[in-house]
């Protein structure tokens, strides 16, 4: 099966990074078209395309935009390029290979929602992405594509890069807003929602890199053309970051709705002699799928939701039988313990507690009641906090110990018969 390269069509051409090269491939022509449209028509087009947020939550983008108050209050567009979900690396590719594609998509989106100022919040570790996007913004300013009276349309727009400092929680939209405001990167209490009171208490729209880039193609080809890709409820193409035990890991662009089995094959399949054990389909916070479930799964929002997992940011982590699920859960729990911002008590205390229990099991000091305790603690962490980090820690914990209970129990038995740690297969 071949990739369907809509957004990533020219990613293999180094010239696509620069303004001239980008323009050669039709760059900024869509912007010129959009600036002649009625902003409301752009929003309607995006609504009609059924585009869903590519950052993780999958919320319909056009609907999100329409939550903005209709008055003339200043509003902000923020691009979420914090890309912190373990397993995800698609935004990085997009910013490094095609920064102008993002900028063009952002100006169109900003025009649609009437925003005069936008920020691209890029995670601090992405040095090269930050440099690429900064350079591209400079080029765009010089070419009159940003600033006052863009392309003679009368529309003004300023854009800036804001570099994060490496906190996962700043990928949560209100955490990101706090960070841009110069505060500690902690999510804000909702309501009020960002569309009503966001950055500097003004209406704010936060969209993912891929979402904003996709807007360009929706305006270029029209909603109907975009809907030709993907499924009824998950239209369009999506970039997936496939990692783990496949022979050719990396980013691929495919229509939503392809089978996970095909996706694994597109990435060269498993290493010889290995058997599929599990797949995490949407980044480390997505509940894990067993090999059986994975073989039945299609990669779209509705199928994965039905299976009790989620598409998330499109980070597909393939796990073969050389891995211990206890070991993996320990890594995941350590991550969420380390990244909890510490505001809400269930998350602050629960992530640490889970991490300690799983680590104890891994070290061979587990007790039979620990498995149920992990489930009980996780259940009490879900839906109880300001943001979803608590759920993001609880969901893998519950799915791991439920679906691979045998492996955890085996670990406990080994723990009682051996004195030291447990050797993995």
């Amino acid at each position, binding site marked *: 099966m071949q990739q369907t390269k809509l957004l990533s069509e020219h990613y293999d051409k180094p010239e696509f990074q620069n303004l001239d090269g980008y323009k050669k491939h039709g760059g900024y022509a869509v912007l010129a078209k959009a600036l002649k449209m009625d902003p409301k028509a752009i929003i309607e087009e995006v609504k009609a395309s059924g585009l869903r947020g590519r950052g993780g939550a999958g919320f319909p983008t056009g609907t999100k935009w329409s939550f903005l108050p209709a008055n003339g209050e200043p509003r902000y567009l923020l691009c979420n390029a914090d890309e912190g979900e373990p397993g995800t690396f698609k935004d990085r590719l997009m910013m490094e290979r095609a920064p102008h594609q993002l900028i063009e998509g952002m100006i169109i989106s900003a025009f649609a929602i009437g925003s005069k100022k936008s920020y691209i919040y890029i995670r601090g570790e992405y040095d090269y992405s930050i440099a690429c996007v900064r350079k591209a913004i400079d080029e765009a300013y010089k070419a009159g594509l940003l600033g006052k009276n863009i392309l003679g349309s009368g529309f003004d727009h300023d854009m800036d890069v804001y570099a994060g400092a490496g906190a996962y929680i700043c990928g949560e939209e209100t955490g990101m807003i706090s960070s841009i405001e110069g505060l500690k990167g902690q999510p804000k209490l909702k309501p009020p929602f960002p569309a009503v009171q966001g950055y500097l208490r003004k209406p704010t729209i936060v969209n993912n890199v891929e979402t904003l880039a996709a807007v360009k193609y929706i305006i270029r080809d029209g909603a109907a053309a975009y809907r030709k890709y993907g499924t009824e409820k998950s239209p369009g193409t999506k970039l997936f970051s496939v990692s783990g035990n496949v022979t050719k890991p990396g980013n691929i662009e495919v229509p939503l709705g392809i089978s996970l089995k095909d996706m694994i094959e597109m990435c060269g399949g498993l290493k010889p002699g290995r058997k599929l054990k599990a797949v995490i389909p949407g980044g480390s916070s997505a509940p894990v799928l067993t090999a059986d479930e994975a073989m039945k799964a299609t990669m779209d929002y509705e199928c994965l939701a039905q299976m009790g997992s989620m598409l998330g940011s499109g980070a597909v982590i393939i796990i073969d039988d050389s891995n211990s699920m206890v070991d993996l859960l320990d890594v995941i729990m350590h991550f969420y313990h380390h990244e909890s911002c510490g505001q*809400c*008590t269930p998350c*602050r*205390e629960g*992530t640490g507690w889970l991490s300690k229990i799983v680590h104890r099991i891994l070290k061979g000091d587990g007790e039979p009641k620990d498995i149920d305790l992990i489930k009980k603690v996780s259940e009490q962490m879900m*839906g109880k906090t300001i943001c979803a980090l608590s759920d993001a820690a609880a969901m893998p914990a519950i799915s791991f110990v439920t679906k691979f209970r045998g492996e955890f129990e085996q670990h406990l038995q080994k723990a009682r018969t051996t004195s030291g740690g447990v050797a993995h297969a």
Partner: protein
Amino acid sequence: MPKLKINGKDVEVPAGATIIQAYKASGQDICHYCWHPGLSVAGVCRLCMVQVEGIPKLQIACNTEAKDGMVVNNNSEMVKETVKWGLDFHLINHPLDCPICDQAGECGLQDQYMQFGAYDPEMAEQKVKKSKVVDLGPTVVLDSERCILCSRCTRFCDEVTKTSELGIFNRGDHSEIGIVEGKPLNNNYTLNTVDICPVGALTSKDFRFRQRVWYLKEADSICPGCSTGCNVKVHYNEEGLWRVKPRVNPDVNGHWMCDVGRNTYKYVNIKNRLLAGKVGRRDSWMEMSPNDATRTAGMRLKDVVDKHGPESVALVLTGQYTNEEYKDLLVYFVTGLKLKNIFHWVNNPEKLNDFDGLLFRGDRNPNTKGLEAALKLAGSKGRWEDLQAGLNGKKIKAVVVAGPEDQSVYPDMNEKVALFAQADNLVWFTACPSDALNGSGAETWQIPVKTHAEKAGTFTNFQGKEQKFPLATTIVPQALTLSEAAEVLAGKELNWALRPKSLGGAKNNYATTERGAL
């Protein structure tokens, strides 16, 4: 005005109110730590969970607006289980040092655990270790392990004092309250952070390790520290007063009081007090009961008036006594002795109208307004120049002074003692006399009187608001109120059987000594 059902009970709340306010209004219990009526909503402790009919997920009551027709409960099994676990999350890293914790007995965590928790703990892991003694500033100490990160203290410093000394450093379960190096928690309202701390994380250097709170009694009172008249509670036992805490009054002080006001318990205690009447001059003093001292002073004053007329006696009053006392004293002096020379001693008049924008005022007398009203009623036209001239010209033979209780706010004390001692006779009613008085050349009566905590009465604050307060305790039972003094001066006998007795055992109260380091 939205009407809603809270645990089956109908409640009506003002528009815009939250569900937690509806709970408070309906008088029903709801578990919470981070919410405080005087601060913004943080929504982080996640304990005030309620079930709202029609909403599948549990909601936090502090950030959910109460709407008309809502049906809310927090007594379903689902909510109870959530709150129980919420408490467990608070406690898994909380140290079990309740026996040596200053908050024990008035701890939100203890109380709410008894009410909503009471489960078998399942946490078997090593607790997170944090600093046990963090010096935040001159008044407050932090124990980071006890802290449940409710952020009340940081919000207080951000929103009320707007000084933002406190912040939460680090993240996750390693978060700690702290200050930026070199910028200690040092404003006039620091001890409010100790009050609002629901656990024993923030403790007052002045109070910690001095008393077990369950042995203390409390009584309503009014702070005598300045003309704001913050509503307070004094905490005391048989040894005396140990601390002052604010009492909510939205019209006067809201939820807070200043650190200066919190120190007003100190001069009330026995170590600083005049216990017996002292009569004599310079180095020759004779002790006698306050009653006898007052009676002999009254006889002397009558003699002076008989011999030299009422112009020869001056009465000097400070704004530190109650309206009732002013009335009784003035009745005796104005109608009894026909006195016209009545003066209002104003301490540092240039600072009188100072105000820090929150609570603390430059007029360091609790009852200036009350005294002014009493003097007006008595027709006093006493001008300070007349007093000075009368004393210099030896026309004034006797001066009677009432106050102040708190010497520290009268910077002109020594100067005034020297001035009044120019008269032949000086009668001085005070709870804590100035040392300068012992060098008085006039024939002097030092007569102990009761402090604000030892009598019932009324102070009129700067707004003109009359605030009644009850008698809290009796520390120096033999001391007189000015009302009693007026009776004794007039030659009447007091009804000793009706006078309040001491709680007994008024020993040396360590709370009067200054404390240094931690």
